């Protein structure tokens, strides 16, 4: 096969495009939307997290500012959630974290309500006030139980 500069150029373009597409899939589509390190790492402990999973978004006033890194059980058998948010974010230490649902059938995410203190949360801090996921089964169960007690 004769060497041909034009063909080599086109082939090089193809390989670059192919590798670029693989990189795009890995980094943009598959990877994290907030770059690995350098973010503010915060913890929150919940009694009930519902269907919250790693990579779920963390939002303030509906704006996504970070994501859940991991969910694990602590020694008191409560769910400890590690999340990473934008490093530039200044959150008062009395901010609260709650687990909400996007729409009726949507995924669960962590909604942060900023507090009013002057001191700010630093990396590694824990949210003092948390609000567990709302479990519809538990609500219905409580309702049924309560109405049963009333009728007796």
């Amino acid at each position, binding site marked *: 096969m004769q060497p041909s500069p034009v063909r080599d150029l086109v082939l090089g373009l193809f390989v670059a495009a192919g590798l670029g597409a*693989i990189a795009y*899939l*890995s980094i943009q589509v598959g990877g994290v939307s907030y770059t690995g390190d350098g973010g503010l790492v915060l913890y929150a402990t919940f009694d009930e997290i519902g269907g919250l999973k790693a990579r779920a978004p963390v939002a303030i006033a509906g704006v996504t500012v970070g994501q859940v890194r991991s969910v694990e059980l602590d020694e008191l058998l409560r769910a400890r959630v590690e999340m990473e948010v934008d490093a530039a974010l200044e959150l008062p230490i009395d901010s609260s974290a709650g687990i909400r649902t996007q729409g009726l*059938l949507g995924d669960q995410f962590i909604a942060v309500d900023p507090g009013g203190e002057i001191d700010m949360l630093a990396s590694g801090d824990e949210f003092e006030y948390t609000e567990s996921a709302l479990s519809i089964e538990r609500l219905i169960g409580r309702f049924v139980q309560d109405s049963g007690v009333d009728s007796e």
Partner: protein
Amino acid sequence: MNTLRKLGFRAYSFIVHLGRMAVFLGAIALNTVRPPWRLRRFAGELFDVGVLSLAIVCLSGATVGAVLGLQGYTTLTRFGAENSLGAVVGLSLVRELGPVLTALLVTGRAGSAMAAEIASMVTTEQLDGLRMMSIDPIHFVVTPKALAMLVAMPMLNALFIGFALFGGYLVGVQLLGVDGGTYVTSMENAITLEDDVAGTLLKSVIFGALVGLIATYRGYTSEASSSGVSAATTGTVVTGSVAILLFDYVITALWGV
């Protein structure tokens, strides 16, 4: 009795072909690491497989993505879940449709051409000519072709998925009015690197090896006649397509990707 005999012979020759294919694969693997490396021949084959398949792969990708967006939207909107359109389109493309459709397209476009080329070299005794010059045809002709298929497939797959995501975005967001941010966020949240993207690359690498092996084997073992060339071409497309779909099930069942 005669039918039974024929059936038995079919089964017997299928097993024999499997065995020969394994030996053939071993020979290709051995010739891959054996110098001299035919880089220029490899580049030429990569051009034939990759660049010449590019147009059909990108066009099909955009079309498949657009159809997925349309179909997914009409189904999801019944449940009021059109906000998950990005996740539906992205997951089905990355996990399943991307690697499988790309492999089927490349089998038809490049695999058949590969088999026909080798088969006509058999017919015109070019491979015997190479052997007379003590050049191993597997080293000179077969290995660069099979390797080019293996290398080109993941890249074509990634390009297919990229164009399909673009097509889905075009229909879902621009045409049907799903919010662009919601579409992209639900897609990026649903697709994970270690599960879905690694899985799509694994699938396309295996499919590439499979198509490369089948195409070169069918060409190399074809009869030295014009009907042998056509049989090798048809056989590559038929065997290749069936093998891709079978392996797709096996990979999905084994690794859950």
